[in-house]
């Protein structure tokens, strides 16, 4: 994995985001209520700059005409065509491609195949001594489980190391 410094932690406050270019890829780094996440800045639909989209919450409808809004700040809506993605894990909020129930690898698939899961590649981002650091692997996707907030929480300090939670 390669290690890339994004910025000072205080430059990326809660609700903020930064879009950076690293090794030929564009990545959006988000601070969601104090936890950092990084997503590939490319929508699998038409390659839009996904991370420039609207940050919002999860909209669900338990029954007709009832709207439940939760997880404010954790959902990203693509600036073109409006597809929704969970910032915390890159998954599409409602897989719009899935028309058959099937298991699938958690991976980024080409946008052309309509049955594929259009999840977004995510990257580990950690705070090391008050610096926001992004790790890029090889082509293997990485996911930070939403529960794993220890290393990507703002305000923590950690000695620089190669140990990365995945």
């Amino acid at each position: 994995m390669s290690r890339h410094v994004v910025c000072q932690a205080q430059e990326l406050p809660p609700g903020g985001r930064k879009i950076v270019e690293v090794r030929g890829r564009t990545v959006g780094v988000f601070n969601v209520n104090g936890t950092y996440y990084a997503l590939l800045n490319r929508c699998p639909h038409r390659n839009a700059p996904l991370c420039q989209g609207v940050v919002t919450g999860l909209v669900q409808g338990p029954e007709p005409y009832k709207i439940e809004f939760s997880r404010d700040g954790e959902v990203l809506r693509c600036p073109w065509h409006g597809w929704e993605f969970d910032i915390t894990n890159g998954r599409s909020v409602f897989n719009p491609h899935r028309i058959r129930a099937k298991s699938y690898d958690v991976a980024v698939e080409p946008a052309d195949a309509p049955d594929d899961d259009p999840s977004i590649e995510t990257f580990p981002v950690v705070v090391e001594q008050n610096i926001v650091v992004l790790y890029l692997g090889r082509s293997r996707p990485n996911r930070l489980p939403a529960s794993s907030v220890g290393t990507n929480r703002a305000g923590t300090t950690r000695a620089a190391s190669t140990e990365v939670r995945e």
Partner: protein
Amino acid sequence: MAIDTIERTSTDARGSASTRLTTIDTDIHHGIYSKTDLFPYLSKVTADRFNDYGLIGGNLYAYNGGVRGYRADVVDAHSPGGLGAAATNIDRTLADLMDGCGVGIGLLTGSSLYSAAAMPDLDYASELCRAFNDFTIEHWLARDARFRFAMAICPQDPQQAAQEIDRIGGHPGVVAIIMPCGAPRAFGQRFYNPIYEACERNNLTVAIHFATEGTGVNPPPTSAGYPTYYCESRQARPSFYQAHLASMVFEGWFDKFPTLKVAMLEAGFAWVPPYIWKMDQDWKGLRYQTPWVNRLPSEYILERVRFATQPVEEPNPPEAIHSIVEWMDGKNTLMFASDYPHWDWDDPQQTLNTLKPEIRQRIFHDNALDTFPKLRA
């Protein structure tokens, strides 16, 4: 808001160079940034009224997609709401779309003033349209030779509309009129003849765009009244175009105005084949009611009507796009449109990339030249 901290990045994952060609974009929504943009072109009385009233009887269905209908990555968070966004910025359009996407000619189709077509006060509405037309000519057309203009008119007042067409229709940059599709009478009816006669005089194409459905003086947007949600209002758009097309065919419009072409903008196109099949079938048994129609309806339509591609179809399976294009003679009847800067726009470099190059060349360039004769001037 978080947008402030974003650094502009290059769009590094666009279509390959093989898809580049000089594109003619037949639907770019320019507009005014704020009401004050129109003041220099309005009388004092109207300017005051415009300031107070705005565009009354306007949009029934709020543009619920994107940010106020625009792409979130080109909208200016600080622009005044209600009249558009800084995506109506000329510099932005030139950089993003014209230079950025290889668009060689861009047809400006407005947006801010569409609701004037549904206003009951005909003089107020017409004056606003005149002002918008002058604003466009002075700011957009004069700024870059790649822009052309589909001028604004108020179809609900054909006399004033004809006067406006004669007033500026001779401008080299004006190549078409825009008729917003929500209307109390379908566009083939003789009520509108003064408009078409003026188009003939000025060699302008009749471009129909969706707007004003079910608002102002217009009837409910469907024959089942008013749908509830924005996603429904989008789907109703082809129904207007179909009503107007049927009207034009059966009122003999194509024979009455033999030199005029029709451009249908922003309703996609996969609806066209089943529609023309149906029209041909139904006509067989009811032909006697409109005996002046002496060719198959589909022949008139495929010969004289052109369809903008946006919002482009995404069939399942994707290969079905080839059938659709073939069934409607798409290599002759389709014209690329981006709909920049709206949220559901189509990137010129990523649209219909699986079509054969010679078909793409026609759709992205040649067909627009055939459809808007003044483009060749």
